[in-house]
C-alpha cells in the first residue's frame, strides 16, 4: 500500500495509491511540501460539495494554467450566481478616469487637445473616446495616440464630432502618454474638444 524511500535532502517520500469507497466520506487533506508535482482529484458522486474557504487579511489566489491545450469548462446552473465581468468589477474596484480637453484649433493644423500620462503602477483601459467642434458645424477628424511609443490607437471623424465606444478596451501601460489630436479644415480657427474615458487598474 505504501512505500517510503530516502530523499537526497533527508526527507522521506511517500506514495500512497489509495482507493476509498464508502457511502459517506469526510476527507481532510493538509499538504505541506517543497513541491507538489501532481495532485489529481477525481470526484464522481451523485452529490458533491467542494468548499473552498479562504479567509485572510490579504489573500492572493493565482490560477495559472500552462499547456499546449487547456480546456476550462465551467457550467453553472443556479437561481442566483454572482460572477462579475471585468467592466462591472472595474466599476467597483478600479479608478474610473475621464480626461477632457479643449483648444483653439487653427484650420488645417493637427492640434493636441488632451494629454494624459498613466500613473506609475497603473494600467489604463480606455473604453470610449470622442472629439468635436464646439463652435460650428464644420467637420473634424481626430486621432487617439500613445505618444510615448508613437502608436496610434484609434482614428475618428464626423460632421461636427463623434463619440466611439470600443468593443474591447485600449490598454495603455504605466508611464505612457496618451493624447488626442484634432484637425479641422473650416478655413478659420475653431474651438475643438477631445475626451477619453476608462479605468485605471
Amino acid at each position, binding site marked *: 500500500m505504501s512505500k517510503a524511500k530516502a530523499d537526497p535532502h533527508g526527507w522521506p517520500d511517500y506514495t500512497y495509491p489509495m482507493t476509498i469507497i464508502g457511502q459517506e466520506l469526510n476527507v481532510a487533506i493538509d499538504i505541506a511540501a517543497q513541491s507538489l508535482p501532481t495532485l489529481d482529484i477525481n470526484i464522481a458522486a451523485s452529490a458533491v460539495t467542494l468548499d473552498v474557504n479562504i479567509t485572510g487579511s490579504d489573500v492572493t489566489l493565482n490560477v495559472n494554467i500552462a499547456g499546449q491545450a487547456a480546456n476550462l469548462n465551467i457550467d453553472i446552473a443556479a437561481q442566483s450566481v454572482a460572477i462579475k465581468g471585468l467592466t462591472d468589477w472595474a466599476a467597483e474596484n478600479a479608478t*474610473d478616469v475621464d480626461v*477632457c480637453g479643449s*483648444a483653439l484649433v487653427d484650420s488645417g493644423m493637427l492640434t493636441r487637445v488632451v494629454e494624459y500620462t498613466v500613473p506609475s503602477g497603473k494600467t489604463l483601459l480606455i473604453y470610449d473616446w470622442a472629439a468635436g467642434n464646439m463652435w460650428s458645424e464644420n467637420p473634424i477628424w481626430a486621432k487617439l495616440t500613445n505618444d510615448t511609443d508613437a502608436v496610434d490607437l484609434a482614428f475618428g471623424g464626423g460632421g461636427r464630432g463623434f463619440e466611439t465606444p470600443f468593443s474591447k478596451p485600449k490598454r495603455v501601460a504605466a508611464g505612457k502618454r496618451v493624447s488626442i489630436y484634432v484637425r479641422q479644415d473650416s478655413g478659420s480657427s475653431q474651438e475643438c474638444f477631445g475626451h477619453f474615458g476608462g479605468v485605471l487598474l
Partner: protein
Amino acid sequence: MKASRYFREKPVNYVNQRWLPDGTVEISIYKHGWKKSYKFKVKHFGTEKEEILEDEEIKEEKEEKHEGE
C-alpha cells in the same frame, strides 16, 4: 501635495484641460470624495521644457491619508 504632482503620480477621476493660444494649459483635477477640484497651469505642457506657472495645494482628508501610504 501640489495638484501638478498629484496629476502625474496619482490616479484621479476627472481631468479637464484647456489649451490656451499663448501656449499654456490650465488643468483641473478631481477625485471622488474631494470637496473641490484643484487647478494648476503649465507652460510647454508635456515637453522637457514644462514649467509650472500656478499650482494649488491639495487639502483633502482623503489625500492626506494617501500621502502616508
